[in-house]
C-alpha cells in the first residue's frame, strides 16, 4: 500500500505539446490588425470633421471621389507588383505550419532539447576525441554537421569515424536522432 507521499510508479501526466515557434501568420495578423486600426482611426477622424469638431476635408470621401473615374496610369504597375508581393507573403504565411523548435528526447515524459543545445553536446563529444580540436557543429532538427581539425593529417579517416561514433553515442538520448555528417577542415600546420 503506497502512502500519500509516494507517487505510483509509471503514472505520468499528459505529455505537453512539442515546443514550436510563433506561427508565421502571427506577424501578418498583427500587421493587418494595425491596418484595421488605422482605417478605424481615419473613419473616426472623418466623423469628427463632418461634425465640425476638426477642420479639414473627409479623407474617405476624397478616396472614393478619386477611385470613381480612375483610368490606367503608370503608377498602377508598381502598385500591382506591390499588391501581388504582399498578397503572396500573406497567403504563404497563412498556410505555413509553425516551425518546430525542439527535438524529442527518449524519456517516459515529454522532454525536449533545442538543436543548438544539441550542437553543444555534439561539439563537446567531438572535442573529446583524442587528436581532434577546434570542433564545431551546425545543427538543425534533421542534421548535425560537425566540422573539426585533426592533429595528424594521416588520421583523417580514422578520426572521422571516431568523431561520428562519439557524437552518435552522445546523442543516443534522442528519440529520433538527426543525420550526422563529419567534415575534417584540414591538418594542423604548426
Amino acid at each position, binding site marked *: 500500500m503506497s502512502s500519500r507521499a509516494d507517487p505510483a510508479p509509471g503514472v505520468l501526466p499528459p505529455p505537453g505539446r512539442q515546443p514550436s515557434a510563433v506561427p508565421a501568420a*502571427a506577424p501578418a495578423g498583427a500587421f493587418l*490588425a494595425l491596418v484595421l*486600426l488605422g482605417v478605424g482611426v481615419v473613419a*473616426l477622424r472623418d466623423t469628427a470633421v463632418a461634425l465640425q469638431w476638426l477642420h479639414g476635408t473627409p479623407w474617405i470621401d476624397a478616396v*472614393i471621389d478619386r477611385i470613381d*473615374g480612375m483610368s490606367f496610369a503608370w503608377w498602377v504597375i508598381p502598385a500591382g507588383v506591390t499588391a*501581388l508581393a504582399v*498578397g503572396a507573403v500573406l497567403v504563404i504565411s497563412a498556410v505555413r505550419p509553425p516551425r518546430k523548435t525542439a527535438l524529442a528526447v527518449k524519456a517516459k515524459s515529454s522532454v525536449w532539447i533545442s538543436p*543548438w543545445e544539441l550542437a553543444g553536446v555534439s561539439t563537446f563529444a567531438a572535442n573529446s576525441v583524442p587528436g581532434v580540436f577546434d570542433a564545431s557543429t551546425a545543427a538543425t532538427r534533421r542534421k548535425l554537421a560537425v566540422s573539426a581539425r585533426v592533429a595528424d593529417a594521416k588520421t583523417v579517416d580514422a578520426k572521422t569515424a571516431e568523431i561520428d561514433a562519439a557524437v552518435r553515442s552522445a546523442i543516443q538520448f534522442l528519440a529520433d536522432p538527426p543525420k550526422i555528417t563529419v567534415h575534417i577542415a584540414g591538418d594542423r600546420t604548426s
Partner: protein
Amino acid sequence: MTRMATALDRVVSLIVGVVLVVVGVGALTWHTGLIHGLPQVITAPALVDAVDTPWWRWAVAGAGLVCVAVALRWLVAHRPMGKATPIRLHEAGDVGTITIDPAAVATAAADTLQRHPAVRTVKGKAIADRGTRTIELTVTAAHPDELGAVITAIDDACEHIAHAAGDAPLSVRAIVHIKGGRELTRQRLR
C-alpha cells in the same frame, strides 16, 4: 497566443492575401488586353451616391468604432502565452470543490528537481499552451555527461506531478539545456 487568435490570423491573412493577389494580377494585366472584359475606367456610382446621403456620416462613424474595437481586441490576442488558470475539480455528489493551482505545482516540481546533483538550474512555470494547461520545466544540466541522470530526474518529477494533480487536465513538458549551452561549441578540450 490563443488557438482562436492563431486561426483568425490564418483566415484573415489568407482572405486578404488572395484579394491582394487578384488585385495585383488585375492591375498588371489591366492595360495589356490579356483579360477580356476589364473596364477602361473604374466607376463606383453607388459609393459616390452614398457619400451624399445623411446616413453616410453615421455609417462611417459606426464602421470606425467597430474597426478600432476589433483591431484592439485582435492586437491584444497576440500577447505571449498566458498563465494557466487554476483547475477546479467538482463532480456531482461532491460536498466541496478542490482547486489545483498549476503555478504552485510547477514551483514545487522545480524545487524538487533543483535538489538533484546533476541539475544546475530549474525554472517552472504554468502556461496555457495552445489551449492546454501545461507545466513547463526548463532544466539546465550541469554537464553534457549528466543528461541521462537529468532525464531520469525529470521523469521522476513528472510522476510526482501526476500524483499531485490526479485526474486534473494538466500536461507537463520539460525543455533541457546544458550549462554553457552554445559556448560548448567553441570549447577546446585537452
